[in-house]
Each structure stands twice: as structure tokens, then as C-alpha cells.
């Protein structure tokens, strides 16, 4: 029996038939993309739409950067002359600098408050495993559901009574409330893929719950905690509406000032500030990715 398995006595087909049946080399367009043999060519329209939509999503963010280097008084793109005057404007202005400082302070404090609070809550909710924990999780997520404008005016009203308006403490409290749900969500989902037995092993070896958490659990959910912290920072730094009502005077945030400026007249300084904000955000995310990334064992 031959290895090819053709029964003895059967002739191979005439060479011509075999050759005409062979598949010619394909161009990229004709190459099948899916198992169901759809080609790139039949999908070009899809690629075109997708590229256009992606451009639509990306362009505004990207365009702000070159705009900030424009020398003219009016917002124009592409800039006819390049200059750093708007950056000078920004750094020279006492009010903008104060607002920036406020924003950074508020964001840093929010991170310091929301991250431990959220992580603790996520841990407690995950470990306790009662049936009603889902209710508590839902409650903790309400800040994400209630329209922010309501949160803004509600807090404004309460703070007015408590004399917390225009204070940093009031702002941080409000921002922390907005940030905690994000931290909880991120850390809770990390717990879902974390092997809870490890902590129990540590405890059976003599560690208390706290020590076991700090030494065993925390390093492993590190990425989620760092992501949560980054999200908390950004939530506060980018927050507009609550800051609009609750921060003011010498504790006005960057976003509040930008918003008011946008409504009055469009100042190109905002382009410079926006660029700086984009840089800060990107750096933050890049750092949190590297810092929090799980090292492969």
C-alpha cells in the first residue's frame, strides 16, 4: 500500500486539469480575511467608514496641540506663525497658576482619599460574600448614575449651609465621592481574577488579616489599585461641573476657569492649557501602566 493511499490501478488526472485547478497567487485585496472567505476587496467600504470615524474621534484632541503654538490672536488652524506666546501668557498669569495649583492639589488629595477608601470597600465587599453586597455595590456606584448637574447643585446647597463652598476640603470631599465608584469597580474586577486562597494560606501560616492583605494580596492587585488611583486623579483633575459650583475665588480650579473663559470669549491660552492637560494625562497613564504592570514570574 503506497504511503499516499491512492488505490493501485488508479491513474493520476491529466496534468492539464490539475494545473488549471491550482490557485493562482492572490493579491492582498483578493485574499480571504475570514473563514467564510470574505475578501478585503468586498470590505473596502467598511474600512473607509471606520477610518473616517476614527479620524473624527481623534482629530479634536490632536488638533489642539498645534493650535496652541499659533501666533495669531484668533484661533486658527493650521497656524500661520508659530509662537509660544500663549504658554507665556499661561505661565505668567497669577490667576491661571493659582488655578492650576488648586487643581493639582485637589486631584492629589482626592487620590489619597479615594484610593484607600475604594480599595478597602472593594476588599470588604469581595471577601464578605453576603447576598446583599450587591446592593451595597450598587449604592457605591450611584455617583456614576446620577446626572452630575444634580450632584453639583445638591452639594452646592448643602455646602452653602455648612460653609464649605469655595474650600479645598469641600472640593476634595465631593471629588472623592465621584472617584470612589471608579476605584471600587476597577479593584473589584481585579479581585475576581485573584485567587483568594493565597490570602487564606498566608493567614494559616500565622499572618493576621491586615498583614496578609498587605504582603500577599496588595502586590498582586497592584495594577488595579494603581489604575484606580490614576482614574481618581483624572476624575478630579478633569472635573468641571461640581467644581463650577463648589470651587471659587482663590480656590477656583483650572477647569472652572477654563469653562467660564470658554463661555465669555475664546481665549487661545486655553489651547496651551489644553495641551498641557493632554501631556499630564498621557504621562499619568503611561506611568501607571509601567508602574502597575504585573511582572511575569
Amino acid at each position, binding site marked *: 500500500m503506497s504511503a499516499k493511499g491512492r488505490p493501485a490501478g488508479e491513474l493520476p488526472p491529466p496534468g492539464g486539469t490539475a494545473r488549471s485547478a491550482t490557485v493562482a497567487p492572490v493579491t492582498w485585496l483578493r485574499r480571504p480575511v*475570514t473563514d467564510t472567505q470574505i475578501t478585503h476587496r468586498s470590505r473596502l467600504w467598511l474600512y473607509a467608514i*471606520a477610518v473616517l*470615524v476614527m479620524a473624527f474621534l481623534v482629530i479634536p*484632541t490632536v488638533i489642539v496641540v498645534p493650535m496652541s503654538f499659533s501666533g495669531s490672536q484668533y484661533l486658527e*488652524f493650521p497656524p500661520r506663525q508659530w509662537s509660544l506666546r500663549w504658554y507665556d501668557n499661561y505661565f505668567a498669569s497669577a490667576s491661571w497658576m493659582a488655578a492650576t495649583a488648586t487643581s493639582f492639589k485637589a486631584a492629589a488629595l482626592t487620590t489619597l482619599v479615594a484610593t484607600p477608601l475604594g480599595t*478597602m470597600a472593594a476588599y470588604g465587599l469581595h471577601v464578605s460574600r453576603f447576598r446583599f453586597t450587591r446592593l451595597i455595590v450598587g449604592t457605591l456606584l450611584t455617583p456614576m448614575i446620577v*446626572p452630575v448637574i444634580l*450632584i453639583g447643585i445638591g452639594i452646592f446647597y448643602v455646602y452653602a449651609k455648612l460653609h464649605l463652598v469655595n474650600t479645598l476640603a469641600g472640593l476634595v470631599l465631593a471629588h472623592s465621592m465621584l472617584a470612589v465608584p471608579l476605584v*471600587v469597580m476597577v479593584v473589584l474586577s481585579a479581585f475576581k481574577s485573584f485567587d483568594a486562597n493565597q490570602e487564606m494560606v498566608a493567614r494559616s501560616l500565622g499572618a493576621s488579616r491586615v498583614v496578609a492583605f498587605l504582603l500577599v494580596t496588595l502586590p498582586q492587585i497592584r495594577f488595579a489599585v494603581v489604575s484606580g488611583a490614576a482614574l481618581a486623579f483624572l476624575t478630579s483633575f478633569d472635573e468641571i461641573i461640581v467644581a463650577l459650583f463648589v470651587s471659587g475665588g482663590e480656590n477656583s480650579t483650572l477647569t472652572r476657569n477654563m469653562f467660564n473663559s470658554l463661555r465669555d470669549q475664546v481665549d487661545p491660552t486655553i489651547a496651551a492649557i489644553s495641551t498641557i492637560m493632554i501631556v499630564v494625562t498621557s504621562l499619568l497613564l503611561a506611568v501607571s501602566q509601567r508602574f502597575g504592570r504585573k511582572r511575569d514570574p
Partner: protein
Amino acid sequence: MPGRGGHARPAGNAAESGVSAAADARDRAAGRPNASLLHRRGRHERLGVLCLALPSLLLVFITLVLPVGWLFGLSLLADDGSLTLEHYRKMLEQPSYARTFRTTFEVSVLTTGICVLLGYPLSYFLSQLPRRAANLCMIAVLLPLWTSLLVRTYAWLVLLQRRGLVNTWAMELGLWNEPVALVHNLTGTLIGTVHVLLPFLVLPLYASMMAIDRDYLKAAANLGAGPVRTFWMVFFPLSLPGLLTGALIVFILCLGFYVTPAVLGGGKVIMVSSRIANDIEIFFNWGAASALGVVLLVLTFAFMLIASRLLRASAILGHADPT
């Protein structure tokens, strides 16, 4: 752990921990910690751990539940402090309120519709890419989310103004001859809201598309369905739960949207949120503002309820588990 001693406990606890009362009693008599005791200790310990969530709950309660609750109360108070429904009555009577609600729904429905039209093809495209290309293109979707809302709104303001990029290039390309008003109107508002909310549709929709087992498509093809029929008869129905989720998220977020419509609408497109802000900042009319806020909140929760019902129903009809 300090011993609690084997005092007599009601039999109910033994049943709770799944151990027979007899075995329980035997343990107790021998001085061993019985199963129901251990179960109860476990319970207490878990309750203790749950207390870790208390600070967060407290924070949310004080800064969210209380203020919003106060707003409820405010909406029922007249200027002189007496209980009244006049704020709500005004909402039903004054035509300006009807206009506000209509505008809000218009913008939300249109935004959702446009997001679906733009977002579905994009999500489909992403779902067909190999893993690395998909991750790269995903950055295009996530980049707007990372960028500050103000920055994006500002960018659109610049792009859409009379001397802005869009008008300049359109005129150069011959699309129209005179600068078209693209901002401080409904068009500008929609462009802005769609831009901000599109990622919220794409992300859940993409996830749901990725979960569709490719074997379904192969089976459909094998049974005789060409690419078009495979898509409409198999792929699209299975992607519906994700589409509905995304669309509802976009709609609900748009209802309460403030910043972008306020800036790009330029005072001409007044949604509920702008009205609330104006009532407070300009008119100091807390009664009207809080009543409006309550209505907005109720609408938001109502739509969320509808959403969860719809999703449960559609998930039952077509959850994507192949075996």
C-alpha cells in the same frame, strides 16, 4: 480567637450551617467548637470585613444621598417655606418647560441614533481585526475618553466656528460657498455630544461582538448563507444586546449632559441640565431648579429600569453560549 463557649443555641443555627442538630449537640457535649458556632463566627468575621466599606458608604451618603434628598425637599417648598406643588405645576403649565424637555429628548435621541450609525460599523471593523491591530485602533476610541471634556469641547468650538477648519476646508473643496453656522446651534451640539458619547457605545458593542463565536458564522455559511445574509440573520441579532446596552448608556448620559451642549449650543440649545444651572446661577430659583432636577433624576432611573428589563429579555433570546 477568644472562645465563646458552647452555650445552648437555638437549633435554627445548626440547620443554617448545614449540619444536623444531633451532630451539633454531640460536639457541644464534647466541648468541641460545633459547626454552627464556627459558622456564626465566620459570619461575624465577614460582617467585620464588610465594615471596611463603611467609610466609602458614609462618604457617598453625606455628599450624594443627603444633598439629593435635600433637593427633593426643596422642590416641594415655596419661597415662604410652606409645602407646595407649585414648582411642578409650573413645569406642566409653562410652555418653556415643554420646549426644554423636547429639546433634551431631541438631542438625546438624535445623538443616540448618530452614535449607532457611526459606532456599529466601527465596532464591527474593530472586531474583525487581528488582536494587535485592534488594540492599536482601540487607542483611537480610548483617546477621547482620556482627554478632558473641556479640551474636546474647546477643540470643537475652534473647528466649527465660522473661520474654523471645517468651514475653510469645506469651502476649499467646494462643498459650500459661504461659512455655515456649525456651532452655537443644534448641529454643533450634536457634533459635540456624539463625539463625547461615541466611545460609550463602541466599547460595550465591541465587547459583545467579540463574544460572538465565529463558528456560528461558519455554520451559517455552510448552510448556504452568503456574507450579507449571514450578517443580518446571525451576526446582527447576536450583537443586539451589546448594541442596546451601548445605545441606552449613550441616551441616559445625554439626558443629563451639561458641559458640551452648554458650550456648543451657545445658549440656543437649552437642555434640562442647562436650565437647572441657569435657574440656580442666574435666577437663584432653587425651587424650580430642584423640581427640574427631580424630574431629571426620575427620568434617568426610569430609563435605566427599562434598559435592564430590555437587556434581560434580549439576553434570554440570544445569549452567545455555543454549547
